[in-house]
């Protein structure tokens, strides 16, 4: 019951939603719209569960780990301020506390964290990239040529523009297309395995 009922629901919902795609009727459209609303609705409660989980973990740290106490309070207070500031929909206009915290805290810090990766990618590439084989040399050369595109080098830049445009629109396109098709086949195989109950790891233990 604890496992067979969820497996039966997955099979029923999966088969209905699969065949619904090929039946162009108003009823089928209604099922699709209503099922999508179900996904959003369950997803909202799941997200709230995640946020509650974050609060629990942070509170636990604040109580039991003196080294983490200050940082845990920072997280909880900033989250609380954000929720209170944005609770009323009228407070979401430009210049409000909610939008200022979004524009002057969230956006700059996230952009800076991603920009830090420039240093780490360069450092990792310096340590790991060695043109020892033809394949490694090919990868290194392509990366070098693509990065060189933004550097002004006179006549060389002009030639490089054509080379990079060709690389991106021919071999890169072929490689990306093969990867997309591989991912698509993998998604289809995994979906079929889930619907048929062969893949059941999402149920967890017991």
């Amino acid at each position, binding site marked *: 019951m604890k496992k067979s009922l969820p497996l039966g629901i997955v099979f029923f919902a999966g088969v209905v939603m699969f065949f619904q795609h090929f039946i162009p009727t108003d009823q089928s459209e209604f099922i*699709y719209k209503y099922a999508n609303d179900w996904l959003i609705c369950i997803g909202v409660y799941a*997200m709230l569960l995640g946020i509650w989980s974050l609060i629990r973990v942070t509170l636990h740290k604040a109580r039991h780990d003196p080294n983490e106490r200050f940082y845990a309070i920072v997280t909880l207070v900033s989250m609380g301020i954000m929720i209170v500031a944005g609770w009323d929909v009228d407070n979401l206009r430009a210049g409000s506390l909610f939008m200022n915290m979004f524009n002057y805290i969230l956006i700059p810090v996230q952009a800076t964290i991603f920009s830090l990766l420039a240093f780490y990618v360069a450092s990792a590439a310096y340590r790991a990239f060695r043109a020892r084989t033809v394949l490694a040399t*090919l990868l290194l050369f392509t990366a070098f040529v693509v990065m060189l595109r933004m550097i002004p080098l006179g006549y060389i830049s002009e030639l490089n523009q054509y080379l990079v445009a060709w690389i991106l629109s021919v071999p890169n396109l072929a490689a990306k297309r093969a990867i997309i098709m591989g991912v698509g086949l993998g998604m289809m195989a995994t979906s079929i395995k889930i619907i048929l109950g062969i893949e059941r790891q999402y149920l967890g233990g017991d």
Partner: protein
Amino acid sequence: MGTAELLWNGLAALLTLFIFSFLYRDNVFYKFAERLVAGVSAGYWTILLYHTSFTDKVIVPIFEQQHYWYIIPSILGIMMWTRFSRKWAWLSRISLAFYIGIATGVALPIAMYASIYRQLQASMVSISLDWAGINSALVTIGLLCSLAYFYFSKEHDGWFGGISRVGIYTLMIGFGAGFGLTVMGRISLLIDRVLFLKDYVLTLFGA
């Protein structure tokens, strides 16, 4: 720039420096900025979900439009919360089963259409003896060779090994291009952050 904007920009500049301090080593300033953003981000998503998804899919349909069948997904959503109880945690599997069943059923034909059918359709172009035609033929050859590389049911030797070898060369060029573009994207972000700091300092000193 008004005083309030100057102060908010000052906070953004300070937090930017706090994050950059991680390049030296993990420290209290970085940790502060990191946890601050974790809290702000959680609060932001809570509010965003409340005003868009929760209001649109729970409050408005049930309480304003009297579409009471929307109570069913709400009950399923609330059942997710039984995860906190050891005795009733299995109930959350029912909600999860609906979610996964609907999502996989919807994803299956979409993956078939977008990842297979559309990609094949884009690769099957008429061959012509100009540059565009030659490039299209090269894309198709590269695609077939790359797919051959991912085919593991036949040993990669002989003529098939040659084809898969061309495939791995194509894939390496693709990975190289991807790597180059990623690095360029990160460098652009870095330039943007440095320019922001420069502009802020110039504004602060009235330049």
